[in-house]
């Protein structure tokens, strides 16, 4: 059922996907709406697990009294209908789901990522405004770039160019500090 966002009145088909603003027939709110069949779909009730009836029937690993319906695609354990979690075509048990989420193996469950390349570039570039900080931040930038070179940075497939630029800039900074240290030492010796 498609409803007005303001007064929740049911909307007729004539107000959908119009070339201009449409009016709600009840409250007159202006809107443009694209509707899809999911709005009319009935909610599926959750599948209940059947009890093991005959001896020799496979039972669920987590619920020994319940009948197994399929194996887990991650660990192979037998699962009942209640334990089966479907995720992008895979059937997983709760244990594999949690493990996959924690280790970052299930990309579909990831909702946060750090941009290590941006952090490394910021450590290399921003402290240049107060140049003395670069004695600490340049090595930090190099460490972050090398340590997290292979870490997944973004779901949107960013290139490594920020890492490369950060390494180059930080490298020049470190080289500059080393040269300055050598120069000062030589000068003091002479």
């Amino acid at each position, binding site marked *: 059922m498609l*409803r007005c966002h303001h007064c*929740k009145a*049911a909307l007729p088909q004539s107000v959908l996907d119009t070339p201009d603003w449409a009016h709600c027939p009840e409250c007159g709110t202006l809107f443009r709406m694209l509707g*899809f069949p999911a709005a009319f779909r009935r909610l599926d009730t959750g599948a209940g697990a059947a009890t093991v009836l005959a001896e020799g029937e496979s039972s669920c690993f987590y619920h020994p009294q319940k009948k197994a319906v399929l194996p887990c695609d991650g660990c192979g354990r037998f699962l009942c209908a209640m334990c089966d979690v479907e995720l992008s075509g895979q059937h997983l048990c709760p244990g594999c789901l949690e493990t996959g989420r924690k280790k970052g193996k299930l990309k579909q469950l*990831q*909702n946060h990522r750090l941009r290590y390349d941006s952090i490394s570039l910021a450590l290399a570039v921003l402290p240049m405004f107060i140049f003395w900080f670069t004695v600490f931040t340049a090595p930090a930038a190099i460490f972050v770039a090398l340590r997290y070179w292979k870490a997944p940075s973004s779901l949107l497939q960013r290139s490594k160019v920020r890492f490369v630029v950060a390494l180059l800039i930080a490298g020049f900074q470190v080289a500059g500090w080393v040269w300055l240290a050598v120069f000062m030492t030589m000068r003091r010796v002479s």
Partner: protein
Amino acid sequence: MARKEKEYRRLPGRGHHLSGTSTLWLGPDHLLRVDSHRYAEDYKRFYYGDIQSIVLLPSTRRQSILIAWAAVCVPLTLLALFSPGAWAVFLGCLAGLAGLMLAVNWLRGETCECRLQTAVQTEVLRSLNRLRTALKALRLLQSRVEAIQGKLGPEFFHPEADAAGPVSNLFEPGLTPGTPSRAAHPDLQQDERRVIHSSGAAHAVLFSLLLLKAAIAATDIAVNHLALTVAGVFIYLAVAVAVVVALIHQNRTDIGRFLRWHVPASLGYVCAHFLLSAAYNAAAGLSGKSTDSYWQSLVALSETSAWESPWLMGMSVFSIAVSLAIAIPGWLGLARFWALRPSGAKGA
């Protein structure tokens, strides 16, 4: 080696919020919303099979932005016209920048709010905040969703299908089709757009500043001091900003007509005050009393008593009279607005 095909395709539009930007990406079986902060990203997925509807609602954000940039551009332009030498160039450049932002905002077209609805949530898609961009993006999204769900045909709106009972909305299980869940508000029958409850805070700040302006102007007549003159300038600028904020804030709110008219009246007072000040400076220049810098002109103004200059006395009296004429009835109206507001109405 074959080039890896990109998993996501970017949709047009970009939304800005305090900590970063928001973009939309089309994936193989879901729409991905990416909220980018400086050094991190947050993701939210909307699977094509779960999307029930996408709604565009008109918004007045474009008008508000236009008013805000005009409120910056016009005074800067006037200041540039009456300022000497390098100041004129500097202020002219600032006015030009403000004018450019105004033009860009105008050219980008109408603004809107885009909401995506599933069975369990209604999510605002911040990146689709311009109508032209939103329509372009939604055409791309529509084809992906319809590839999964199919098209919405007339069979879904058949009365027999409606009578089968409530469907796919977890938050309103008791609804029967064809009836609204609450009666339309009587005001909405006259005004087609949504009305937001105003807290009156912006108007309260404006009227308070006007009272303060009147107090400073009155004190300045009796006591000559540079601090009072400088304070008067800052209060005047604060009033100008408060006028713009109140103009934007009262748009499409339930604040009464009596209070609404105080804000344009305040804007008129701000412009009149500016013109009178500019005329005074021009007159001072013609009489040979011009100064090299704005600071020197402030110092000269603070040293001149209102009793010695009829022009200054007239401006002070004008400032006190108009400020009180707007602020006092404004405060009375605001007190009445707060008293009459139904309890529990949350302010905007």
